[in-house]
């Protein structure tokens, strides 16, 4: 019975696109993929913009400290089965922003990544190929297995698998605290 429904996965992958502080180069390329020239919608792909109904998480940018709690929250809000695609050099490794004081050097420190798409910015052909690979991985995933962010191991005493608790614990640890340095006068 469930084998029947699994066949239709590759025909309608819905995308959630999140920008974790990228320069907008990769975002423009993703938009170009959805536009008339590359037309991802012919494969049934639409940019849903809603984590609860999306299947593929496309992340661009090197994860700034402001964005990391939201990235974890969006990842947790997506229902299984889901796949994560890191688009562009920044999302893969940090790119030109690597080792700067305000970034986290790529998304794979936080959430499990299935496909890495290189390039600065990633070309639309590469993005289409990456999404195709992501769909292949997505077809093998189980609905029953709950996937949690990698950084959950760093937080002590998490035993529950309740999403709301996990989200609040992650936000507590990774939400950015603004430190305003006062001028000494």
């Amino acid at each position: 019975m469930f084998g029947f429904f699994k066949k239709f996965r590759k025909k309608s992958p819905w995308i959630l696109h999140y920008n974790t502080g990228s320069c907008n180069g990769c975002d423009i390329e993703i938009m170009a993929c959805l536009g008339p020239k590359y037309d991802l919608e012919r494969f049934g792909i639409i940019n849903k913009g809603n984590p609860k109904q999306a299947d593929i998480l496309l992340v661009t940018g090197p994860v700034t400290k402001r964005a990391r709690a939201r990235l974890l929250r969006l990842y947790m809000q997506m229902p299984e089965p889901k796949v994560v695609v890191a688009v562009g050099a920044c999302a893969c490794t940090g790119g030109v922003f690597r080792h700067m004081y305000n970034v986290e050097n790529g998304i794979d420190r936080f959430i499990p990544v299935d496909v890495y798409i290189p390039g600065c910015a990633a070309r639309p052909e590469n993005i289409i190929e990456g999404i195709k690979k992501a769909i292949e991985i997505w077809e093998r995933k189980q609905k029953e297995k709950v996937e949690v962010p990698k950084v959950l191991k760093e937080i002590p005493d998490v035993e529950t698998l309740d999403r709301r608790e996990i989200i609040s614990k992650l936000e507590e640890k990774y939400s950015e605290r603004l430190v305003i340095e006062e001028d000494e006068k």
Partner: protein
Amino acid sequence: MKGILFTFALLSPIIGGLIYGLERKFKARMQNRQGPPILQPFYDFFKLTDKRALQVHSFHSLMGIAFFVAAWFAVFALLIGPNILIAIFLHVLALLFFTAGGFSVKSPYSVMGALRELAHILAAEPILVFAAIALYLSTGSWNIEGILTSNTVPILQMPLLFCALVLTVPILLKRSPFDISEAHQEIIGGAEIEYSGLFYEAVYTAKWLEYIFIGVIVFLFGGSNYLLGALLVAATFLFVWLLDNATTRLTIHYMMKFAWGILLPLAAFNIFWVAIWR
């Protein structure tokens, strides 16, 4: 006649899905894209069955299913019921279930979408009621079979009201320029934002039934001339899809002014004119 209408009502989610698939194809072709296959809505439907459903709370999920059931019931009431006015009120009830679901969660987008949905009901439904009155005035029957077998052609007597009805279709189907309650990437679907998996499937399918509901009402303006009715439906949907591609989203105040300031007086004028002139 009764048997055909019953079968049509029973198959209405499937036909509505095909119309939605056609819409996506047509819109893509208008933008010089290839577009998804016509069966794409059904692929989405089957995929959503195999997704994990995250519930916010049980009342919210129940309202999603109630929206689908009530919308289908409204289509049944329209096609085999005694009175098309009752079907229009049942349609309002279906939308109110959806609104109640939207209000029941904490998400601000959901609440805002539900508020805007209420404005949509307020803008569109009076004109649907006027359309039912117009059909009664020109054919002398509240019943769908009576309208389909009468000798008159309602659109010839009610051209202004039909124009108003055609411009109501974008408000009812939430298409641009009046896609205010759905507003993709602004409030991301509005009241449907918190549904997932099976429960989103119900909401997604209920929206296909809206095509059938408004399509049948437009079809009735052809009276007993079924070819004219079919042409009217095709022309209306093509016009709405073209309008969707060609315009941007307007504000909620503009929609209310447009519906109550232009469309409703237009429809009322046509009805009074016909009622007095007879």
